[in-house]
Structure formats: structure tokens, C-alpha cells
């Protein structure tokens, strides 16, 4: 991976996971899961703004908005789906506040670089890959052509 295109926070998250053994990676993912912020109140009234990531096993909804040239990522998933919440939380923490072009430059295979294949299985990691792809697509649709 070209580290020059990976935003600092996502690089730190990757390094944090890779520094741990397999079982501790699960615990770190659980911490991310617990840290997923609640949606801003305005989305409670506009659930239509959220897009469901159908590739994920659990109901997860994401929405990217660009305000004054800064990307903001919102996500929600049920408490019964902690793995999905953890994936979403990694992306929210790593992406929120970046410039749109920085988000678009995140390597598509970032989820595969976290060392989670062994801990949660490559099949499940695909869910995060799908989320990242949706985020980028939503951003592209909002940027001027």
C-alpha cells in the first residue's frame, strides 16, 4: 500500500491492530464498536438520507455529507451486530473531517490490511470493504464533475 495516500488516523488504526495478537484484535474491534457515535438528531427525522449497505450481513446505514469542503461520515448499526458496528466505527473515526479527495485516495483494500482476516474471517471483512466503496461512491456523486 502507498502509505502517502493513507490518512494518519487510518494508518494509526492499522498499526494498532497489527501490533496485537489475534484475540486482542477482536477486543480492539469491540472497543471501536462501542465507540460508534449515535447519529446526529437530524437524521432521526430523515432516515431516508441514510443508505443501506446491502453487502453487509447486518443492517448498517451510512451517509456522507460534505460541509465547507470537509467530509462527514455518519453510520448506524444495531447493537446485535457488534462486528458491523466496529467496521463502521473504524471508518467514521478515520474518515470524518478529511477532505473529499483524501477519502477518495484511501486504498480500496484498506480493510484487508488490518489483520482481521484471521480474527473475524476474510468473508466478514468484505463487509467493511463494501462500506468503504459506498462511502467513496457517495462522495463522488456529491463532488462537482
Amino acid at each position, binding site marked *: 500500500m502507498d502509505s502517502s495516500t493513507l490518512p494518519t488516523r487510518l494508518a494509526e488504526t492499522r498499526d494498532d491492530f497489527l501490533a496485537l495478537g489475534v484475540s486482542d484484535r*477482536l*477486543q480492539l*474491534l*469491540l472497543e471501536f*464498536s462501542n465507540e460508534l457515535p449515535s447519529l446526529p438528531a437530524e437524521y432521526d427525522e430523515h432516515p431516508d438520507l441514510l443508505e*443501506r449497505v*446491502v*453487502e*453487509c*450481513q*447486518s*443492517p448498517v446505514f451510512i451517509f456522507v455529507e460534505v460541509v465547507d469542503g470537509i467530509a462527514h461520515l455518519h453510520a448506524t448499526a444495531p*447493537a*446485535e*451486530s*457488534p*462486528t*458491523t458496528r*466496529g467496521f463502521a466505527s473504524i471508518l467514521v473515526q478515520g474518515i470524518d473531517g478529511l477532505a473529499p479527495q483524501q477519502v477518495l485516495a484511501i486504498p480500496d483494500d484498506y480493510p484487508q490490511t488490518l489483520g482481521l482476516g*484471521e*480474527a*473475524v*474471517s476474510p*468473508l*466478514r471483512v*468484505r*463487509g467493511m470493504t*463494501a462500506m468503504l466503496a459506498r462511502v467513496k461512491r457517495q462522495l463522488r456523486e456529491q463532488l462537482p464533475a
Partner: protein
Amino acid sequence: MSVEPDTGSGFAQYANPERLVSTGWLEANLGRPGLVVVESDEDVLLYETGHIPGSVKVDWHTDLNDPVVRDYIDGARFAALVGGKGISRDSTVVIYGDKSNWWAAYALWVFTLFGHPDVRLLDGGRDLWIAEGRELTTDASTPVPVEYPVVERADGAIRAYKEDVLAHLGSPLIDVRSPEEYSGERTSAPAYPDEGALRAGHIPTAASVPWGRAAAADGTFRSRAELDAIYRDEVGLDDGDAVIAYCRIGERSSHTWFVLKHLLGFEDVRNYDGSWTEWGSAVRVPIATGIERGETPARS
């Protein structure tokens, strides 16, 4: 040492009532010597958010599948896995999980491949346990490792390979996937990742019975009468029939396998775990599309 069956919860209506325990029975028996409680979920982190006190976790994907070959682990790995969780060959194992025990039934089926004698499901699974306000804990369980014998898998009786299904065509098949997968509108369950199949549809002559029809709203199994109405009256299964169930990778059909084998008492029931991800990509196997079962293909 095994623990006596749950005889007070209305399971006598089923063919093998000793394969189920109720939440009340489990709560009353927690901590009994010889009893090991196993949680097996779709979500690999759900156990960590809170589990039945003393229970251990077995993950369908990271624990039960061979990491290289598309197959289940072998006898040595199974012995190391379950022995490390305090399960001996004579333990009573009660498995529970999320989503109406979908994954718990899968784990039970894999335990059965290794011939573990006494393995049961918690009727209603994780959701019913929680709905009834029973205790969960995040305290780590500390099982004392025990010796489990190396027993090689005996696949033949309850597991079907693709060749077995081809030879079985003309006998009852149950497709437990969603109606959209059965008809060929899509290759993966709604809201699930596409695990890859090049063709869509179903195995000719298979009856469509989505697995969840066997579960009630609270996650418990439907009554014997309700299950008979589905599988005997509607599908047409008769005593003595040999049946193969399949889904996409063999997990949903484990739930149906449990229903047919242990609740309705069909002797010869196999789960085709290759399922649609194999059949839908295999070269020159027959496929039917649409909502009709389709004709038995001529032998070639």
C-alpha cells in the same frame, strides 16, 4: 458424565426430545458438572458483548472451517478446539446462538460429524434468553482444558457432497434459501454479501421451504403439528424418505437438517454444505429457474 435430558418443557412432542433444552432448564442447570454451554453466532463479536455465564464460544468460520481447504476441520483440530474449551467426549454440550439458532444448529451439525454423543440446542437461543431477562456476563469464561479423543469425521451419514446430490436427484430435496434465491432472481440472501455463484436458480425438483419457517417469532422451534404441516403435508415428505437440504454454504440448511432429523424423526437426512456456492458454479449440473420445482433431469 452427561446430564439428564430436559423432560419438563414440552419437548416430548418431538422425535428426539433429548436434543432440546429450555431456557429455564439451562438456567437451573448452569454449573452442573458434565455440562458445557457453547455460544455460536453469526456475529463473531456478539459473545464478547455478553454471554451466558460460564459459556464458551465456538465461531463457525474461524473455528470450524479448515483455514485452507473448503472443508471442516479434521479430528485432531476438533479435539484441540473442544478439549481446550473444557469439553470431553462424555460432556453434555448445549449450544445456543443468535438468529433463531441458525448458527448454533450449524455448530451442532459439525459436532455431529465428529459423532459427539450428547449435543443439544437451547430452544429459542440467545434472543429468548435475553428477552426473558436472564443473566448475561462479559466476564471471561475460564474452562479447564481436558483431553478430547481424536475422532475423524464421519461425513457419510449426514453430509452430502455434490456427487451425492447428483445421485439423489429424484428423491426429496429441500432448498431453504429465500424465494428470490430459489427462483433465480438473485444468488445471495437479501442483505447478505454475495459469496459467489455464477448461475442462479435451484436444484431441479427441490422444494422451496425457507429455513425460518421452522422457527416461531420468539426463536423457538414450531410445534410438531406445525412442522408436520409444512414438511409432510405441504412438501410431501413421507416416513422413510431420504432427504437432502441445502442453502448457500450449508448453514441455514443445518437448521432445517436439525428439524427434519431430530424434531420430525427422519432417519436419513443429509446437509449439502457445498450448497449453492458450489452447485451454482459447477460445470454442467442441472439447474431450474422460476418458482416451479422442475423436472428430474435425465441421467447423462
